[in-house]
């Protein structure tokens, strides 16, 4: 999640005094709690006959144990495979085949990486798996959710898994909103995880694409695994390869049954509908779900970093650099100070990093600063740099540290602070424009906490002084709290 986004989550009600937008939106967002614990946020907007529909669960990669890393993400994939009625020609027959597939698949998984496995036995099992899979495929009606949404004009049918939450979304023509309620409530009650082992292969391809063949992905993954030693924020959402290899359908089912329940669920609808009738409809479809139990909080706490960490990655690409510092997450007061500090540091061409590193010293062609990897637990301020050809990482680093040092030794001017606030504010305004953007923001914020807490954000941010910003710089932007990752070709190393 980008820093801007996190800020946006907190601040969308905090709008300049001359507008009444804050109040307007506060009036527009209607919050309800169903009897089973599900939270429903509704925003009526009649500018175009469309609706953005989001369902988020307060569970993501951070909630996995070491036996099941990657399960939240693979579950997200598996939830597109249909239900007992959608996606099948004959569920009763299918069920038996799914059982067989699972049995053989688990046996293969148990054997495939053992040194003493009889290769013939393994091959035999793989052949019989392929055979049952082929038989099963005859009973599958492919991608029916997608077909039904497609026929009805749905766009952006998708889902995403983050460290902290998992979200399912679709945009529909306004007259089709009930279709969403029918499909989504069906999938929460009757999901069938068909084609599991094929989808696991898809996830491997996704991992190769996003991390193993991408310099950016490779750096980011390495950065998290280095900066965190204990906290599960260290693990990639998609899982390490060995995690993906070992996941089985029972784990998916268990995770789903345990956490995809109303007490962990936020439904957000933004668009052209009438609230009262829509709430009734939501109750009709989702009200019958059993409440479930809340996702337990993560107990791991990252110990204080007691020395700089450095890693070099060999990759077939020109050099890149990432530098990260541990920092507290919301609603810690220091997090607001970081929002402003990061704005001054890197947003726009007048920002300190751009002026110093790109324009004056011409050490890098690009520099970005963002908060990562989540917002529920203490996170990182990450600086990502693209050095110019011929400039060494050491030169670039020295210039970065010199800029950071300025925050420790000089107070920010009131003018700079004011510009930073204005920029944050306006970027929030821009992000309110589309139905989908607003729904995403409300949904994410609500899964992280309670969106009413937003109201206090303006006061919090306004209360941050130049002294506060200097204090966080002194406290967190220190060498022994940082992790440095460089990526380069082997021969350049």
């Amino acid at each position: 999640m980008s820093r801007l986004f996190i800020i946006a989550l907190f601040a969308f009600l905090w709008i300049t005094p001359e507008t009444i937008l804050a109040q307007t939106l506060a009036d527009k967002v209607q919050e309800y709690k169903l009897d089973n614990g599900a939270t429903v946020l509704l925003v009526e907007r009649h500018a175009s006959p469309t609706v953005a529909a989001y369902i988020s669960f307060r569970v993501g990669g951070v909630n996995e144990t070491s036996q099941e890393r990657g399960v939240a993400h693979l579950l997200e994939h598996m939830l597109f495979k249909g239900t007992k009625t959608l996606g099948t020609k004959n569920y009763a027959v299918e069920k038996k085949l799914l059982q067989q597939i699972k049995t053989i698949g688990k046996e293969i998984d148990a054997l495939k990486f053992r040194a003493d496995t009889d290769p013939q036995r393994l091959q035999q099992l793989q052949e019989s798996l392929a055979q049952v899979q082929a038989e099963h495929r005859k009973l599958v009606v492919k991608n029916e959710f997608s077909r039904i949404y497609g026929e009805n004009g749905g766009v952006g049918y998708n889902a995403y898994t983050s460290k902290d939450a998992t979200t399912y979304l679709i945009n529909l023509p306004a007259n089709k909103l009930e279709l969403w309620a029918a499909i989504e409530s069906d999938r929460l009650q009757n999901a069938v995880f068909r084609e599991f082992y094929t989808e696991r292969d898809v996830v491997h391809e996704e991992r190769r694409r996003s991390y193993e063949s991408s310099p950016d992905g490779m750096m980011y993954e390495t950065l998290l695994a280095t900066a965190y030693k204990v906290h599960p924020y260290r693990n990639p959402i998609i899982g390490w390869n060995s995690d993906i290899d070992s996941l089985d359908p029972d784990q998916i089912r268990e995770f789903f049954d345990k956490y995809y329940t109303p007490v962990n669920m936020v439904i957000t609808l933004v668009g052209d509908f009438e609230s009262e009738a829509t709430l009734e409809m939501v109750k009709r479809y989702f009200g019958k779900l059993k409440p479930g139990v809340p996702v337990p909080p993560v107990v791991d706490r990252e110990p204080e970093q007691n020395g700089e960490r450095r890693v070099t990655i060999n990759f077939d690409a020109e050099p890149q650099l990432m530098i990260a510092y541990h920092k507290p997450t919301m609603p810690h007061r220091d997090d607001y100070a970081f929002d402003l500090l990061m704005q001054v540091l890197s947003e726009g061409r007048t920002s300190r990093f751009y002026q110093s590193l790109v324009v004056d010293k011409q050490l890098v062609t690009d520099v970005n600063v963002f908060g990562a990897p989540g917002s529920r637990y203490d996170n990182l301020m990450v600086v990502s740099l693209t050095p110019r050809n011929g400039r060494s990482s050491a030169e670039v680093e020295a210039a970065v540290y010199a800029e950071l040092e300025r925050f420790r030794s000089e107070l920010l001017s009131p003018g700079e602070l004011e510009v930073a606030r204005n920029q944050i504010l306006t970027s929030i305004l821009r992000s309110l424009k589309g139905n989908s953007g607003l729904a995403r923001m409300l949904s994410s914020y609500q899964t992280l906490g309670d969106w009413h807490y937003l109201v206090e954000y303006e006061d919090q941010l306004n209360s941050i002084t130049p002294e506060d910003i200097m204090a966080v710089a002194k406290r967190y932007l220190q060498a022994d709290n940082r992790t440095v990752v460089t990526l380069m070709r082997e021969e350049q190393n």
Partner: protein
Amino acid sequence: MRYLFYLLVSLFIFGCSPNFLSSQERPDQLSFPPLDFSFPEVAEQQLQNGMKLYLKEDNELPLVELTVLVEGGSLYDSPDKTGLSQFFATTLSTGGSENLSPAELEAELEAMAAILTVSSSSYAYEIDLSLQRKDLERGIEILADLLRRPRFDAERMELVRNQMFEGIHRQNDNPGSIAGRILSEAVYQSHPFGAYPTVAGVAGFSREDLLEIHSRYFKPQNLWLAVSGDVHQGELVRLLEQQFGDWQSSESFLREMPLEPPAPQGRIYLVDKDIPQTTILMGHPGINKDNPDLYALQVANYILGGGGFNSRMMREVRSNRGLAYSVYSYFQVGRQLPELFIAKSETKSNSTVEVVSLMQQLINQMRDEPVTVAELDLAKKSLINSFVFAFSDSHSVVSRKVRLDYYDYPENYLEHYQQQIAAVSIADVQRVAQQYLHPDKLQIVLVGDSDRYIDAVSSLGLPVEKVDLSLE
């Protein structure tokens, strides 16, 4: 027909327990009220000096968005100056104006939290400015100063040049961008569509080049302005007249569009990169927007690879076989000249040839066999029913309207779109597939660990060429 089939199936399976699955429990059997939709109105006005203005007023948020299209673009870069239009666009946005130095301009815009970007595409320069309503008057003043009297500051110009050098230096970092470049070069050869900036070319760009582009293209009659947000037409016109009114039109230039070369015969390009997954990119020349078969091709491509999970490529390559995360195809519909038909995927090194040949088979199948009624029906319904999303954002409404006029789309293109899609038949789909999909002309680029599949690639029966990136 399809619904009836499902009903029969469910009766067959659950014949003894009819309560378990009443027909009402299938979400696709719900019925819906008709959608209340009308085309949003866009105000149009031509200023005295020839500037064309389009406005979609929207008072929900205190913001104004402006997009200016200016005739010009990369298609008119001369062969020894490839990338000049990009150099121009970036230097225009960062190089200051007559009244404001680069630093002053940036400081003032950022103090207003305004965002200014300038980009160059094949046929146009585009300037985008996003502002708070209260800053509109000053914003337009700055915009006019920049468009009419750019400074092209020397230091900033060198900064842009260095950034372009760095871009060239890093052009082989990501497999996707390598594949895109090799494909364009293979199809277009020396045509501007296949040309990429070189160190020597970029080193030769001068300030005179920038001034010449400016004086040739930046004239009131070549400016198309799309505005949305919290502003009234009268106020906007007054501000524009104030800042641009005394800018008079001068002689127009004649645009000469370089002709594209004929489609080369099919060929495979192997590009070596030390990564565990191969990027597969294939393409050949396609169509432009004036082609009457545009609609049938959109339906055909939805079925082939454009319809996400509803497409054959996704079904066969990803969903049935687990060979890729992403696989798709599309027609880049050229605004004037025809552009490419493209298909793309990524798969682990060992399954490279399997995926290439699956994609080829699926393309061939579109030509060889009629699509099914269900496929046609789904593609058409999806394109028709999702059409309303083209109008869900007021700036996209007004900037689309400008583009349709700028590129000379037929009158009522949008109004007739749904009817045109509805009229497409199974025979149309097969006919256009045969006419516009040419498996024998596909340029297939494979970026990855080529030792792993170099032998298997020969089974595809096309000439194979190895590309050495270090020689570029």
